[in-house]
């Protein structure tokens, strides 16, 4: 499993997102974030081709 971010670095990540949680919930989230990091690595392994499109393409003229 990926190592969790150091607590101070994780606190900055939370602050950047505008999230304020009780301290005991922050620690659980920090551990879970390491598991999420594994999923994020899997999304990028192997890296997609430079021109790979996302699943939903913008099509001009189709309306909102």
């Amino acid at each position, binding site marked *: 499993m990926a190592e969790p971010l150091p607590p101070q670095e994780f606190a900055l990540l939370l602050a950047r997102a505008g999230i304020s*949680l009780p301290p005991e919930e922050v620690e659980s989230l920090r551990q879970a974030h390491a598991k999420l990091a594994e*999923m*994020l690595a*899997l999304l990028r392994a192997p890296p997609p081709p430079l021109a790979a499109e996302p699943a939903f393409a913008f099509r001009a003229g189709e309306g909102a």
Partner: protein
Amino acid sequence: MIPTIAEAARLIAERRLSPVELAKECLARIAAQNPALHAFILVTEERALADARAAEARQMAGALKGPLDGIPIAHKDIYDTAGIRTTGHSAQLQERVPEQDAVTVAKWREAGVVLLGKLATHEFAFGGPSFDLPWPPARNPWDTERFTAGSSSGTGAAVAAGLILGGTGSDTGGSIRGPAALCGIAGIKPSYGLCSRRGILPLAQTLDHAGPLAWTSEDCALLLAAMAGHDPLDPGSADRPPPRFDLAAEWRGRRIGVIRHMHERDHPVSPATLKGIEETAEILRSLGAELVEVTLPSLAEFNAAGWVTLSAEAWAVHEEWMRTRPMRYGEFLRARLALGGLLSAGDYIQAQRRRRDLIARSFAATEGVDLLLTAAAPAEAPRIREVSKWASLEKPNFTIPFNLLGWPALSVCTGFGEGGLPVAAQIVGKPWQDGLVLAAGHAVERANGHRARRPPA
């Protein structure tokens, strides 16, 4: 004896069953069992009796609207019901009363259903099982110490216990098929775009599907036929006619792809679950279908793209409240939403690029295959107090791949495990093959005989 919807519809049409008496029987079962099951968070008894009396008047006048006229149902509490509290099972919306029905609620109302109330859900279809919300989580009627799965937890429990004959669910990563599997009933996540989501509280719009749960696949077909159809005001709704829901399929010439790697290697299932999948495959083979083995991308790949997509989109829905009043969410939902808030724009776009790749590879791997078969859940229901807040990160689930693909997928009961609780298989089709998926479920249920056994009252 609790009838299926198909049985009740026939008896009502023949004037051998009174919709009012049927509604009263369901209300009596709710009064007796809901204190232990917590499947309902609101019972609308007056509305139910009024609906039932109206259905009975149509019955006596020979003017029944169709097979759902007089059928007792309830809605997951993320479906808006005009004049009836709709909360998402959350303190955030504890007193909210919508002015309009969701599109699917209105369609069922027009079909003549009898509305018994609103059903428990994981908070906003994502946070549960939670014990710190205004209402407790639903319990599994096969064993009330066990989990129903979620998020359509109340619908799963209420249908299994016979409190209703059918109900609505929503499915973003497995929220119809999970409760169907653990509660031993049928539940279909339809093709993406088949049912309007307008008037349903969103979780993650590119993955959200509305659909029914019922005791049988046949009943799901009746319910789905009445909720399907294009909605020009739902951007995800497909502008094409719904498919036919004909359960009398011809199986000779059909190819069934067993996705063995998913349930044997990617996430090995319990012996009873594996036996149920094998028996389901054998039933379809004995009817004339050909079995082949299919290899799709791994569950881990699907789950990575699925959970990043779901988490990011859910964060976007709840961002404002997560910043201004986070403590009005339960702890499970607050934590799961917060994780989505930590994703970057790049993370989300990479998930969408991977999603396109997964869709292309899945179509290529299933060319010439009509249906797919794998697990709906890994095993029998776990103890409700032992469900992890981060379960979705710990082991890949079997259901979210088909939310990413948008393909129809049904959970059917395949028997019972060592603990006496239900196990299930998942039958999956190509887009707009919802009818064929339900026909397979119907054939399997008729052959395996497990629809004869209900949970203890």
